[in-house]
Each structure stands twice: as C-alpha cells, then as structure tokens.
C-alpha cells in the first residue's frame, strides 16, 4: 500500500511521474486488418489491445436443430447481448498469456473474462444502433496483448474504434476511463485526491473504478468498481473519470478524423459536401 501514497503526498507525482489529472499516452490506429470489416489497435499507456469486428452478418445460430459444429463452440466462449428486434452483439476476449508479468494461462471460460465480455457487450448494445440490423450478429473479438491497468476501459475504447471503422451506426463514441482515489477505504482521510487513468501498479494498491460514458456527456453506460472505497468518494472519482472520458473521446475522434482525412486526400472516398451556405 504505501508505495504510491507515500510519495504522492510529498511531490504530488504518481509512480510514473504523472500528476493526478494526467492521462497516459494514448495511441490508436484503425483499419489494421484488411480482411476484417472493422479493426483497431489501441494503446493506453502499456495496456495494448487489438480489436476485430466482423459483421453485421447473418446470425450463425439458428432456431432448431441446424446448429452445426461451429455454432455452439462460438456461443460458449463469447458473451452476447441482444437488443430487441436488432442485431446480437457477441464479444470474445482473448488474453495473451504473455500479457502480464507472470505468465498465466487464463481460460476463456474464466468467470472474470466472461464478466468483462458481458460488460463490453451490454455497454455496446446500448450505444450501437443495432435495430438497423435485425437477425444479424456483430462479432467483436478483442485480443489483449499487454496489460497495465485500465484493461476494461481499453477494451471498450478499442471496440468503439473498431466499430466506427466497420461503419456500424452508433449514438456516440462509447468511451471508458478509470479513476482512483489516493487513500484506502478508511473513513477518516478527507484530503484524498482523485487520480485519473490508473496504471497496473496503482490498480493493485488503490481503490478505483471504471466509468464508461456515451460521448463526452455525463451519461454513464458502464460503471464497475471492484475495490473498497468510501461512498462519499464515489462522486469525486466519477467526476474525474467522466472528464477523462471526454478527453479520450477527443483522442479517439482525432484518430478517426485523421484516417478519414487521409482517405479523402488519397481519393479513396469522395469529398464530403459542406452544409450551410447554399441553404436558401
């Protein structure tokens, strides 16, 4: 416990030299896989995730006895979220054995992984306009290459990027970010500061939550907290995380815009028409 908190109080600097409100370096790419409908690669600090989106395509699972060998296998390892009269969103998370310091084999049926899958799938179901694609499946496959904190947030952000690349309509970017608090769960510490975007070491030691919002708004699509923290501190942490989400949204938007601008420049897509002026 003392490692982070003790130094933080002296210099107001965190273990990796950031201040309380600094995001880690965020780097992303879209369209990394030519064969996929949509793909992305996202680094948030040292947490690195790849995402591949397939679909929307006709649901493999059919009512009745038709389910072949592929059907049940796919459904048991992925978590799905269905929308009424809309596409099914199936999320699979594969964690590389090399993604953490201690090489650990984590099976796909691990409950923790299943919970992550369910969280991502349900959050995406709330953001995507899945009702436009009845009877189809949007398969989101996430590959964790390296873990250093804020894993759930990174997974959510990477899948958002890949879905934007796949051209699946959505209400707004679904972005997520973590926030922590410098004190433990003890009641007394009033001077605890909120921290933005925790790395793996900080996650081990400090209470934190993951917050996902729809765009840069206060509308919370995802909120996961797994550590003990005073109830009064919740609001501060959520505020900081929501603010971080706004900045991550801007960063993701920049990635998409850069790619779009590049495509327009290269003539791959026709220029957009500007609105206004010739209205009347």
């Amino acid at each position, binding site marked *: 416990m003392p490692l982070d908190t003790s130094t933080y109080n002296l210099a107001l600097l965190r273990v990796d030299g950031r201040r309380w409100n600094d995001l880690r370096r965020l780097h992303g790419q879209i369209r990394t896989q030519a064969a996929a409908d949509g793909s992305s690669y996202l680094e948030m600090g040292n947490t690195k995730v790849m995402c591949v989106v397939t679909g*929307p395509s006709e649901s493999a699972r059919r009512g009745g006895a038709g389910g072949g060998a592929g059907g049940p296998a796919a459904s048991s390892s992925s978590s799905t979220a269905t929308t009424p009269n809309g596409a099914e969103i199936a999320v699979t998370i594969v964690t590389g054995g090399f993604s953490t310091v201690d090489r650990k084999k984590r099976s796909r049926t691990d409950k923790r992984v299943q919970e992550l899958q369910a969280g991502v799938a349900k959050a995406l179901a709330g953001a995507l306009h899945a009702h436009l694609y009845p009877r189809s499946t949007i398969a989101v496959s996430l590959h964790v290459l390296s873990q250093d904190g804020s894993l759930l947030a990174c997974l959510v952000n990477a899948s958002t990027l890949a879905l934007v690349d796949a051209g699946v309509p959505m209400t707004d970017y679904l972005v997520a970010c973590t926030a922590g608090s410098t004190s433990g769960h003890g009641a007394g510490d009033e001077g605890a500061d909120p921290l933005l975007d925790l790395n793996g070491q900080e996650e081990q030691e400090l209470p934190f939550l993951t917050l996902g919002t729809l765009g840069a708004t206060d509308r919370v699509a995802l909120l996961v907290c797994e550590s003990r923290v005073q109830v009064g501190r919740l609001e501060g942490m959520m505020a900081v995380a929501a603010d971080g989400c706004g900045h991550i949204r801007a960063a993701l938007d920049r990635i998409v815009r850069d790619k*779009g601008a590049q495509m327009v420049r290269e003539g791959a897509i026709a220029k*957009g028409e500007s609105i206004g002026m010739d209205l009347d």
Partner: protein
Amino acid sequence: MPITILPPSVAQEPTRSLYQDGSQSDSDSDGGVDLDGDVSMGRPTKRARRDEAIVTPGEVITEDPQWMRGHGTYTIPEPPQIISSVAGTLSKTNKLLSVRPLRARYTPEIGDLVVGRIVEVQARRWRVDVGAALLAQLPLSAINLPGGIQRRRTETDELQIRTFFSEGELLVAEVQQLYNDGAAVLHTRSLKYGKLRNGVFMAVTGTGGGGGVVRARRQAFTLDISSSGAEGGEKIDVILGVNGYIWISKHIEGEGAAAESSGPGITRIEESVGLNVYSSQNDSIPLDTMREIARTRGVITALVENGLRVDEEMVTKGYQEAVEMARGEGEGDDSLWLGGEKGKRLADALVGR
C-alpha cells in the same frame, strides 16, 4: 495495413486541467504538456470544415429543421438536431442529409449487380452470401431453366434444385427486390447472369467507401489481352460485383456476363442457352489466359491496397500499365507480382502522381 512500429517520440498527450483551483492550475502550467491542439470538450458542433474533413459519430451536423435525415444519421427531438451516427463524408440530395461511411458492409440496392456464393439450399430457394448483413435469397422461380424454356417450376425442379446451384457455387445475379430488414432477393433471369466458372474469385471492399468497387455504368466488361502477347483472340471477362466480390474468367463468345453488351440479339440468346449453363466443369484454359487472369487480379489487389476505386476504367488502364511495367523491366511477360512497392508505382502511375 499492418501495424506500424512507432519511433519512441512522445505522441501528443491529452492532458487535462479540469479544476482551475490554486495549486493545481499553476503546477499544470509550468510542467505539463501544453496542448494547443487539444480538442474541445463536449459534442463537437459545427465548425469550419476543411475539404478533407469528415463527420464522426455523435457530431452535430445541423440544427436547421429544414433538412431531412438520411442514412448514417439520427435525430434527437430536443433541441432538434441531426447527428451523425457513422464516420464518413456528408452527402446532400436536395434536402436529404446522409453520411456515407468510410467503410461499411455492402448494403444491397435494387438493380445492383452482385457476385455471390451459395451457402444453403432450401426447398424452393437458395440462400446466397453477397457480403451484406443478411444472406440474400434466390428463389427457384428467379432463375433461367436450361435451354431457355419458360414454364412454371414443378416439383421435379424442386427435387433437382441442386443440379442448378449447390452449396459453394458462385453466381452473378441482380438484386431484384429488398425486404424491410434489408435482405435482398436476387434473380438471374438474363443471359448476363448465372453460374460462374473458368476463372478466379476475389473479394475486396464493396460499395460503402474506402476504395473498392464503386457503382458504375458498367460492372461487367471484357478485357482485351492481346497486348500482353497472348495468343490472339483470347479475352477475359471481369465482373465487378457492387458488393465487392469480383470474378475474373476466360471469355467465351456469346456467353458470360459481358455477352449482352457485345453479343447477339435476344432471339439468338434463346437458342444459345445450352444445357451447359449450369455446368460446374471448367473448360480448358490456355496458359496465357490464366496468366493474364492472374495479372488482372494483381492489378485489382494493387488498386485496393492503395485505396483507389475499382471500376472499368481503372482496371483497364491498370491492366495496360501493368503489362507495360512488366515489359519495361525486362522481366518478361511472366512477371506478375504487383504487391508492395510495385503496386504503389502502378497506382501512382494511374492517378498521375
């Protein structure tokens, strides 16, 4: 595009200063990364767009109530706004605003020429993968019977449905009708359409942006390959399915997709529809033709890799260019490799840069 390894230079780091209270704000200003390029918070509203700008999900396109929303947008009632739901370029048709996504799956439209693959045979119809969100249908009643006979489909036809098309076979067809959920119904009731053989299949991105096949006046055409030194008279057919599926095959006089444009009149077609239209057997193909089919395939791959559109003009020009390049480099006609740097040169030559 593969992942590029970045140099270790520090990319622009989104920092934030959210509460402007005493100690925090001055510690922010002295050491923190100062960002002038940081994007403003909240929904990015209408801003002066440069020509190459795109709209992204959640971006407000307009608050003017006189516009109507089209594909790729949604509205909220309060305040009345049209908001983009995909990343792409804006397009206007009269008062209709829509956003063309940078890339998306193929969305069928009536009249599209598509190349598809049979994935399932049902009682009186086939289910065809055309790269769309849902499988397309091809009813038994929407195909030509061998010999060009016009009659009702009987139970006998239903029983031998697999003799026409069976699983895994490729066909070229036209979208005849759309269901409410966006699924397409195909037909092959023309000599241009039907089963495909004697060639290769390739899939690129279809209409929906990001290069790939675009809707054009003519999706199927014949390529003259005599310039490459192949034996005279041989030609190859190219079918650019609007859905991004492409078929390149040996040209057979009076048959195949390009027949209608160059071929004989309607009466002769009736007679010439032989019994072999549903044959799955390849004819013998001269080596030269095979080579040129492979070269055409390379050209299209290079076009797609370099983000260029795929249509008749580009493929024809690209093909000529590729023949020239192969000849110019003295590697002989057999050099077909058009990947990487070479493909880039080809693309550059085509767009004149």
